[in-house]
């Protein structure tokens, strides 16, 4: 008489291995059905990974863009939103900040060690689009702004050629200009380089002499940075030539490690300069590049959440597809289930086999989705210069994790149906 093993158990590696074969087998036997089953999952994963890649790219570029304006800088503006957008009704009544406030703050606040002012000139002045002209070359994407002499130092601007304008040029309202790299190329040819210096650029019919050309910016949306089309003229010149444009951004550089206290001190001084009573709210807005990036991240997180919701719907549809295929598979293989039971498979062995198949099918869909997403992001780099096709790790993890979960959820009922079969009935089942 032989001794009986109490209850045999199947090692998971064996069931994964054999289920892998079986899953591959059933997919090969009916590739169309398998493709239909996983298409929902593919779409879901593609959506999530594409949005994730784009978000991460935009976020990195936004971060770079604002960090290029100085990570130690506090920006002060009389409105709270985007300086180039129209203000809300309440904020529209606010007076722009005076460009000389920066120097007052720098003098009075310990934590502020430098100040600069930037005057924003709209691209349409008196109903006419601003354009810059040099000889026969014209650029109508020019972004004109007034800048104090200290501006380039405060934002850490890099010069490819020439120099910033001087304090004297600012005070004298000289017609000099520092131009961005794209503008220089547009007006003087892409190889102009140093030859741009001393050339004249016409703005509203008046000539400005180029004293500096900026290096190309690193940040920007998909390789475009409007700052590369900038034509910076002295702030005093801007006030004189564009008297209606007085929207001023103050750049206040905090001493190393004192960004927090700088913000408090700037607020105190600005409130006094703006003559605000103790109960009146601020009529200006302070921000730092990290705060702006933080705001963007909150928007990005919202988009990411919405995408995940969208993906959840795709995964649900995908899950229904998987469940369908599994139900068909269980029915078709009823006899096989009976056979396995007759050979000693326990109900949990059968359950596990079909669950593993379902998960493998879903993971296949997830992997296809990731592959398609990788392909699409690679294509995006061809269309969008500066776009880096990095699929963030969390998107890969989410993709594979959620397909795995979908497989378990979708496969559970069919697998339980298989596991609950009566072996006698199952063996008697006619092959389909």
């Amino acid at each position, binding site marked *: 008489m032989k001794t009986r093993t109490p*209850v*045999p158990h199947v090692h998971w590696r064996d069931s994964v291995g054999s289920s892998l074969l079986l899953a591959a087998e059933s997919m090969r036997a009916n590739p169309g059905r398998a493709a239909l089953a996983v298409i929902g999952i593919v779409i879901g994963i593609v959506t999530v990974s594409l949005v994730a890649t784009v978000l991460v790219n935009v976020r990195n570029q936004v971060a770079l863009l604002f960090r290029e304006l100085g990570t130690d800088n506090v920006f002060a503006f009389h409105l709270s939103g985007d300086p180039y957008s129209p203000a809300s009704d309440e904020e529209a009544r606010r007076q722009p900040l005076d460009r000389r406030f920066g120097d007052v703050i720098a003098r009075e606040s310990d934590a502020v060690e430098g100040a600069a002012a930037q005057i924003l000139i709209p691209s349409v002045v008196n109903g006419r689009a601003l354009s810059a002209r040099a000889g026969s070359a014209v650029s109508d994407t020019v972004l004109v702004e007034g800048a104090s002499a200290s501006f380039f130092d405060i934002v850490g601007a890099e010069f490819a050629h020439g120099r910033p304008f001087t304090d004297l040029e600012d005070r004298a309202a000289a017609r000099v200009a520092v131009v961005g790299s794209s503008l220089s190329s547009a007006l003087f040819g892409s190889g102009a380089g140093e030859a741009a210096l001393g050339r004249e650029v016409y703005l509203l019919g008046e000539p400005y002499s180029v004293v500096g050309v900026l290096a190309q910016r690193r940040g920007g949306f998909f390789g475009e940075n409007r700052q590369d089309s900038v034509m910076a003229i002295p702030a005093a010149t801007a006030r004189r030539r564009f008297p209606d444009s007085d929207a001023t951004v103050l750049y206040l550089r905090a001493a190393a490690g004192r960004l927090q206290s700088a913000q408090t001190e700037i607020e105190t001084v600005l409130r006094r300069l703006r003559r605000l009573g103790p109960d009146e709210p601020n009529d200006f807005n302070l921000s730092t590049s990290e705060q702006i990036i933080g705001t963007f991240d909150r928007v990005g997180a919202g988009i990411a959440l919405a995408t995940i919701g969208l993906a959840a719907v795709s995964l649900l549809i995908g899950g229904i597809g998987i469940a369908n295929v599994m139900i068909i598979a269980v029915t078709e293989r009823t006899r096989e289930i009976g056979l*396995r039971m007759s*050979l*000693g498979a326990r109900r949990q*062995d059968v359950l596990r086999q079909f669950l593993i198949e379902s998960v493998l099918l879903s993971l296949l869909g997830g992997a296809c989705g990731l592959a398609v997403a990788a392909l699409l992001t690679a294509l995006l780099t061809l269309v969008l210069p500066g776009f880096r096709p990095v699929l963030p790790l969390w998107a890969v993890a989410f993709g594979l994790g959620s397909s795995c979960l979908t497989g378990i959820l979708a496969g559970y009922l069919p697998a339980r149906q298989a596991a609950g079969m009566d072996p006698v009935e199952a063996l008697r089942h006619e092959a389909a």
Partner: protein
Amino acid sequence: MSDNISPGAELLELHDVHKVYQVGSEEVRALDGVDLSVSPGEYLAIMGASGSGKSTLMNLLGCLDTPSSGSYRLNGVAVEALSDEELAAIRNQEIGFVFQTFNLLARTTALSNVELPLVYAGLSKKERGRKAERALERVGLGDRMAHRSNELSGGQRQRVAVARALVNEPSILLADEPTGNLDSTTSGEIMELFDQLNRSGNTVILVTHEDDLAAHAHRTVTLRDGKIISDKKTQ
């Protein structure tokens, strides 16, 4: 699991076994008071017309099903009291099934088919391979191990199935019309295989309705209407 094994016990012992199915409002008595004892090493044929209850009896003997009433002791273990999981273990360890339709996994190699019971027994890959090879050699298919079952002839397929039934060294080989899908020459070969396995000590139970098949066995039990109507030694 009960373990009161009396010495010299029969391999299997059925006592007053009933199996009743409910078909709609009607009760079908598939087995109606069956008593049967089989000793180790016997070669038994179970005969009967269709509907006589022989399939039901085979399912009970193979522990695929449990009796409605009565007792079934296999190797001293009271089968009627076992859980699904314990029944699966018994099928794995004690019973070797051979079916009329072979029931091999198509497009799977002979070796993998034979390994299947060992997978459920929890054996290592290496040991499975070794045992499955030996079982295939025993049925004369040592040179067909890597063939997929759909590349094999009917006789070869049934040999693979016999190897699969043997691989776990079960107490009973339970064959249900094992030659039903084979031509007469191949049938003869398969029956020769069973004879040979019985000579080397295996207990063989054949379920069939063919007299010339039953003639291979040493004892024939005939069923009608769920009752044993004859039980005689033939050799």
